């Protein structure tokens, strides 16, 4: 009986009037935030240092905080990669999200279970990589872009041994051409293994017929973007664990 009554009352149209329901909410939140901002602006002054002087470079020179993730990536990759290619890939990668995530579940409501891997990937890219790099760049980098604890005095003469070597050298290659061949194979193997791993993984979590649903183009773009994103933590690991400077060295580009 109660069941039937509830069924009858099921909303055919669950809409409410924008005025007053939404407008009232927007007004109150805007007012609250505006007051908070004014109080904050009254209490904390915007920084203004001494006048610009092109002949005096501060050490360290830091980009605005929202770009410190990119500056921190410069530790691990050359500027053309960390400063140009990776940011472009981030922007393109964000743009293609709606076209590679064709999971029909979770459209317009919070859920974790039905789109666990999508959310975890975003979490890895946004929170773990982007935000962590910003925090490291903001609070843990001092003169010479060396690592300092936030409470540590910034010693501009801190001695840091430069023990980094290139990957081919590390595994024993001394000849230039053999090193280059090894490097290219290592990078090729990374991408091939990455794509195979991605394929097997998606096969496991999305079911046997996933490639039919996704199509080859969607699978390739998603896989390449993920493998390229994972290149950052992989390079970080190689650097921190094995002091690897570059994986590939050529006269034109180093990776």
């Amino acid at each position: 009986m109660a069941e039937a009554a509830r069924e009858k009352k099921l909303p055919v149209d669950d809409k409410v009037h924008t005025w007053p329901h939404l407008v009232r909410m927007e007004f109150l939140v805007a007012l609250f935030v505006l007051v908070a901002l004014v109080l904050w602006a009254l209490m904390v002054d915007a920084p203004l240092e001494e006048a610009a002087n092109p002949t005096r470079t501060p050490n360290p020179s830091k980009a605005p905080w929202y770009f410190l993730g990119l500056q921190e990536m410069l530790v691990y990759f050359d500027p053309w990669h960390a400063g140009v290619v990776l940011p472009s890939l981030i922007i393109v990668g964000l743009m293609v999200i709606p076209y590679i995530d064709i999971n029909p579940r979770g459209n317009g409501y919070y859920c974790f279970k039905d789109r666990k891997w999508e959310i975890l990937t975003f979490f890895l890219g946004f929170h773990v990589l982007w935000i962590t790099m910003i925090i490291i760049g903001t609070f843990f980098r001092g003169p010479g872009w060396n690592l300092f604890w936030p409470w540590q005095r910034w010693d501009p003469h801190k001695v840091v041994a430069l023990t980094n070597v290139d990957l081919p050298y590390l595994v024993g290659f001394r000849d230039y051409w053999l090193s280059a061949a090894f490097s290219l194979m290592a990078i090729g193997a990374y991408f091939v293994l990455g794509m195979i791993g991605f394929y097997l993984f998606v096969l496991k979590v999305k079911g046997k017929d996933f490639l039919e649903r996704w199509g080859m183009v969607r699978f390739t773009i998603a896989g390449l973007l993920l493998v390229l994103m994972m290149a950052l933590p992989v390079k970080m690991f190689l650097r921190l664990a094995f002091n690897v400077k570059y994986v590939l060295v050529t006269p034109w580009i180093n990776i």
Partner: protein
Amino acid sequence: MSLFDKIKNDIVESHVWKSIFRHGYDDTPRNRVMMVTSNVFLHLHPAKVRRHAVRMRFTWCMGGLTFLMFLITAVTGIYLMFYYRPVAEYAYADMKYLEFDMPFGMLMRNMHRWAAHAMIVFVWLHMFRVFLTGSYKPPREFNWIVGVLLLVLTLLLSFTGYLLPWDQLAIWAVTVGSNMARATPLLGYEGPFADFVGANPIYDARAFLFGGGEIGPHTLLRFYILHCIFIPLVASILMAVHFWRIRRDGFSGPSL
């Protein structure tokens, strides 16, 4: 009828008043719709929205707050523009003047800067929320792209504004931030394959951005124009598209 009511009646029934306000304030469903549809600002909204989409724990209010921060920076920015000259000789002195001599100058500058920082945080949180609710899924895919462009423009707005105080913080942060442009493959003189294109320090991607081989008076003017006119204009157009498409597609939510 009291005198007050009579005067009020005369005003509300007058020709002038009725030409401005086309309907009353009665709490009727028809009037609630009219409130939104007959107001150029409020009609950014649909007349009715889905019940769950109004709740704060669904939207976090982040998109709207990003827009609010944009409006605050626009208003305070115009105030600052009255006192600031984008010329290398004057810019820093104008900052001091603005801080110490102008009425509410310091407050306006503080609000401008903190609102700009808040805008970046809010736009990131907005993106995170939209991802969590899957609100980019059909039919809203393209609006997500517009949103990513707006995210990039927000960062560029903040970055171009960073140079304008013309202090040590400004020029060195922008130097570091712009150095990546000279490493652009092909187009930057320190980038790979620059030789094939013939890029050099005064003729490459960064020189195009700076108006010269290094940060100088031209850079200040360029960033000023980008900051005050070009990027806000483009962002406004994209915001109109962004809001319009939300209005057409409706707020996202589970299917009924």
